[in-house]
């Protein structure tokens, strides 16, 4: 074996539109996903390790309502969002009163159980075979949008409509959260992060604020789940491994705590890199390349957290890390 192929990185991929549309769609989806984590971790000081579980609940509820129950997609979306928010409240009620590390443990356990249910309740979710047939109404819309893209020469790009809708949603949500951050509600949230006892002393119900924060994060996870479902066109339990929550944390730390727009930049960086590694020509099997990617994700997470915990755009004074 020579070392030449090991280093042969083909840069052709970066010139192709397919690559960028695929990678940026994922970046948009996981940016929405991570906005929820940012609200919890960066603005409320609640360590939510179960975001992939909320994503799964949203996506599967939507998929089941459309494919099995026969509801319209447009009706299923708000219902699934409410269901996911209810799940967020349910998980928060017994655990948010306890210390932060309990909440981290409970949420990761919760997200594993959701994935476990998706895997084993085969009658409902299709198990590992996956759940299909929930996206016909979206495809109608997508085709219409795609035809409308003819003047800019994107009519061949099947995923372009999803990319556009994902990013529009992302920008609307990030702007809305940015706005909320300045409202009295947002200020109380940050006060909860800084000093819960002080907030309670002022007569605010800190617990209720934390619950609201979790419910909104759950809803954001659900929205990201819908786009992921439409992107894949089928739902599989493996798309909701806790791994994705931690990629979310890598995005969060990279973009900086307490910055909603940092999340977007972080997500673009992480997903450009993750997708680009698919084009590395290494003398390794596909499963080894996949394993190597996640070794690198782990190492990056460790090094970032150890040496630059405020991320690229984070402000030191907004840090909650130094407890």
């Amino acid at each position: 074996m020579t070392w030449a192929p090991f280093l042969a990185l083909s840069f052709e991929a970066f010139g192709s539109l397919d690559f960028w549309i695929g990678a940026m769609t994922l970046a948009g989806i996981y940016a929405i996903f991570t906005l929820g984590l940012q609200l919890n971790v960066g603005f409320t000081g609640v360590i939510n390790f179960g975001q992939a579980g909320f994503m799964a609940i949203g996506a599967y509820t939507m998929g089941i309502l459309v494919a099995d129950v026969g509801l319209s997609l447009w009706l299923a979306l708000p219902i699934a969002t409410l269901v996911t928010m209810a799940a967020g409240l349910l998980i928060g009620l017994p655990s948010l009163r306890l210390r932060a590390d309990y909440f981290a443990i409970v949420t990761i356990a919760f997200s594993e159980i959701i994935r476990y249910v998706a895997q084993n309740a085969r009658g409902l979710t299709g198990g590992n075979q996956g759940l299909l047939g929930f996206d016909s109404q979206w495809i109608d819309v997508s085709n219409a949008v795609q035809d409308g893209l003819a003047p800019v020469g994107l009519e061949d790009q099947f995923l372009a409509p999803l990319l556009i809708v994902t990013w529009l949603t992302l920008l609307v949500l990030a702007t809305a959260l940015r706005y909320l951050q300045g409202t009295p509600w947002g200020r109380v949230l940050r006060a909860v992060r800084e000093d819960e006892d002080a907030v309670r002393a002022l007569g605010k119900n800190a617990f209720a604020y934390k619950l609201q924060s979790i419910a909104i994060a759950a809803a954001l996870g659900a929205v990201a789940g819908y786009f992921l479902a439409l992107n894949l066109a089928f739902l599989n339990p493996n798309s909701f491994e806790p791994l994705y929550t931690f990629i979310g944390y890598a995005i969060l730390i990279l973009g900086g705590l307490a910055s909603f727009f940092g999340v977007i930049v972080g997500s673009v960086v992480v997903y450009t890199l993750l997708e680009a590694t698919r084009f590395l020509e290494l003398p390794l099997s596909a499963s080894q390349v996949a394993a190597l990617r996640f070794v690198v994700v782990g190492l990056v997470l460790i090094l970032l957290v150890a040496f630059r915990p405020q991320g690229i755009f984070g402000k030191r004074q907004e840090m909650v890390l130094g407890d």
Partner: protein
Amino acid sequence: MEAEASPAQPGALGRREGRASLRTTMSANPGLVAAGIVLAIAVALIATQGLQPVAQTGLNGLISGSYFALGAVGLTLVYGTLKLVNFAHGDLLTFGAYTAFVANITLGLPILLAVLAAIVVTAALGVFTERVMWRPMRAKGAGLLQLLLMTLGLAFVIRYAIQFVAGTAPRTLDVDVTSSVGFLGLRIGQTQLVVMLAGFAVLIGVGVMLRSTSLGRQMRALSDNFDLAEVSGIDTDRVVMATWIFAAGLAGLAGVLYTSSIGTMTPNLGFFLLLTLFAAVILGGIGNAYGALAGGVLLGLAQEWSTLLVDARWKLAVGFLVLILVLIVRPQGLFGRKERL
């Protein structure tokens, strides 16, 4: 440290005081209450399902309980001593199992030496992470989120490095997984019997060591109150190191026992077990070593008994159910104290 004192006698009191003192008795003797609940569940199950299946699943529960307890005790000691919620602990089990595989299959060593290798090498990995990651981070005064994310990153690195080298195909150790022994109408695999006996022997050893040796007492003291232990003149550095050796070594052993009992190993086995280990730790009271031992065994029983009522593939969900129930009913766990919450 333990809540074994003051056995009040509700029977000797009037009915109204009896009620109040029953509550105090219950919270003063959580171990007794837990034993009572387990007994009640066992009786109810025997009444509805018959004695033989309950005894058989109970036996299976003790087998898995033995390695749950060994995994959980390390997790809880590291938490108690260093306030580190180690999400990489499950992957230490995986690391132990694969170390045994390398020793046993790749190098062709006998299984006993392979087990020893798993314990030693995993303990070394624990010490390595302490030196390279946790001690420097403690010195920097790292916060909770930082430490949590670093343990997660470490979990990724260990698990996927193993997957990189060994692949995802299931591997087996050179142990006898087919022959079984029968007694009193119950059947147990020969290897499983060895796993259970070895597991409980080590568990008892760990319990005695924590209770009666100077090192064990110091470990519990650190776990109880680090600063107080330090000003009492305990060499905390040495005890922290011992805790890592202990926790990681037992995790390595638990990984081998799990693999021998189940028959196969895959790189995600530890992460799979982590949820159960956390449930055992919280059930026993986070940071409490005896609690983790008891919690592990109880979870093994709960999971196996649940198979009498629901399909076996829901076994893992039982751990989660226990976790949530404990948090609602008694968030400090069986042996924990409320002020720690």
